[in-house]
């Protein structure tokens, strides 16, 4: 199973002297839910638009299903895109929107295929409606149906959920994932929402300033970030910069932390791995308690340093009071070592 639907080799794109995409190499497997994750301006959208053919690449190579895409216009590429703004045709009905790609391909059984695609996104019976009368979530489903109906090799999704409210977004996340499994289609999903990427993806490429920082499964990205950027962008964390001697790391403010690292390193402990009142550990004062329903965030002050602790709201932390002194500890295996 080493079949790749999309490969990018050393792809670079410059806009007005600035490298929007800088030497990106990626291989996206067939049938995989692949996310491009990064802050705005990191090049993820540009990268996707290059796969779709709306932007050309300055150097490097892009292949789709093994075929080189240099100079191939968008309408000859076997990829469809779901736009952030949906981009439904306002002069066409829902059914005609979905049928658009089929008509361009002069496909048979247009009505039947449109009906089945709409049923797949739970919009059966919406055929005659105008897209302008639909809610944001419904428009999103039409856009999805329109993009999958022709059965493209790859579906590109440009932050398709970002315009929707939280509840709807959660529902559509699960639905998108189900759809992708059912269709066994390769999805390339662009998002700046790390939770969304972690929840939905088979693999994630974290991007920063036009470069790929790390590629891996959601677990790998979260549990074993290879750079500080990834560690900071995905989830939150407590960082300790210091010098290691192979067994312990000493920070500038005098903490000694058990970690098998040598040289200048950054240590990361995720907030949910930290424990309060464990007996041993670093002394700290509770500065703020943020109640979040299912979980609690506690901000500690240890010397000049602020630490973030998160825990499930199981009652154990309910007794923590602002201003009181406590100790904070963690297991040595929960310390991640990042290069500096």
């Amino acid at each position, binding site marked *: 199973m080493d079949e790749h639907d999309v490969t990018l080799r050393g792809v670079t794109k410059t806009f007005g002297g600035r490298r929007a995409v800088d030497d990106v190499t990626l291989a996206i497997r067939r049938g995989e839910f692949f996310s491009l994750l990064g802050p705005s301006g990191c090049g993820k959208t540009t990268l996707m638009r290059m796969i779709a053919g709306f932007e050309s690449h300055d150097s490097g190579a892009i292949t789709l299903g093994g075929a080189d895409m240099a100079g191939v*216009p968008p*309408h000859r590429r076997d990829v469809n895109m779901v*736009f952030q*703004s949906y*981009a*439904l*045709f306002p*002069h066409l009905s829902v059914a005609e929107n979905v049928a658009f*790609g089929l008509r361009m391909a002069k496909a048979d059984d247009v009505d039947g295929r449109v009906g089945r695609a709409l049923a797949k996104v739970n919009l059966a019976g919406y055929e005659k409606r105008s897209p302008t009368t639909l809610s944001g979530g419904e428009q999103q489903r039409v856009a999805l149906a329109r993009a999958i109906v022709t059965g493209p090799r790859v579906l590109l999704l440009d932050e398709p959920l970002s315009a929707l409210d939280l509840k709807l977004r959660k529902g559509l996340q699960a639905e998108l994932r189900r759809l992708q499994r059912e269709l066994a289609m390769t999805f390339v999903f662009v998002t700046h929402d790390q939770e969304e990427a972690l929840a939905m993806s088979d693999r994630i490429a974290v991007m920063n300033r036009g470069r790929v920082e790390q590629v891996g499964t959601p677990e790998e990205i979260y549990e074993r970030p290879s750079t500080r950027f990834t560690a900071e962008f995905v989830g939150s964390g407590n960082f300790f910069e210091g010098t290691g001697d192979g067994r312990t790391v000493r920070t500038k403010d005098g903490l000694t932390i058990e970690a098998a690292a040598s040289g200048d390193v950054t240590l990361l402990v995720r907030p949910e791995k930290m424990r309060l009142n464990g007996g041993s550990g670093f002394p700290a004062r509770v500065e703020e308690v943020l109640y979040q329903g299912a979980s609690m965030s506690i901000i500690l002050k240890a010397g000049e340093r602020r630490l973030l602790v998160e825990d499930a709201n199981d009652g154990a932390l309910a007794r923590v009071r602002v201003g009181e002194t406590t100790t904070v500890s963690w297991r040595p295996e929960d310390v991640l070592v990042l290069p500096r």
Partner: protein
Amino acid sequence: MKGRFLSLLLPPTAWLVVFLVLPTAVLAVSAFSVEGLKALAHAGTWLLFWRSFWIAVVSTAVCLAVSYPVAYFIAGCTPRWRNLLLFLVVLPFWTNLLVRTYALKFCLDPIGWTDTGAVIFAIVQNFLPFMILPLYSSIEKLPARLLEASQDLGASPARTFWKVTVPLTMPGIAAGCILVFIPVLGVFALPEFINERTVLIGSQINLYYGQGNVGAGSALTLVLMVFTVVLTWLYARLRKSEGLV
């Protein structure tokens, strides 16, 4: 409250009555006169109507064909260039119509181009801005994402143009066509300047009034007005049925 509302309505109502309803009534009354009916019974009058009609149709079509690429190009420029080019489009309006027409005549006469084609050329040249401006404003509003979506779904640039760009800029096309067609239908002076034998309905009306034949002039004007109103009404119905309003 109600009294205040009515008092606000008074000035525009008075305006319409004095400058539209009354003149139209006077026009209608004088049209239904012996001279008026005589003019309408004359076969030559209808020939003039027919000639005016097809010249207006051809001029509008040529205007549309020439203006669409121009408007499309301007809409695609950077804002700075856009403003400059739009300024150039309306620049001819700074010159008097007669001056412009004379200038055109001095260009056309030496090369001997004075037939109906030259008349249409002159009309198109004069009315182009009325087509370019509404086209520009609707093309400029066209979201680029929709064109991308179309190509993404397998439509070549040409098919994207016919399937997405044209339908979505239909309001601009229709507005431009009305703005050109209606005045061209009643155009006078301009055609005779290029070719004195090209008499259109507008010139004939001018001629009748000039001769003091108010009845005949009014009858022709009334027919022209009714025709224009019917066309505009048909267009409004068409747009409504297409759900574009």
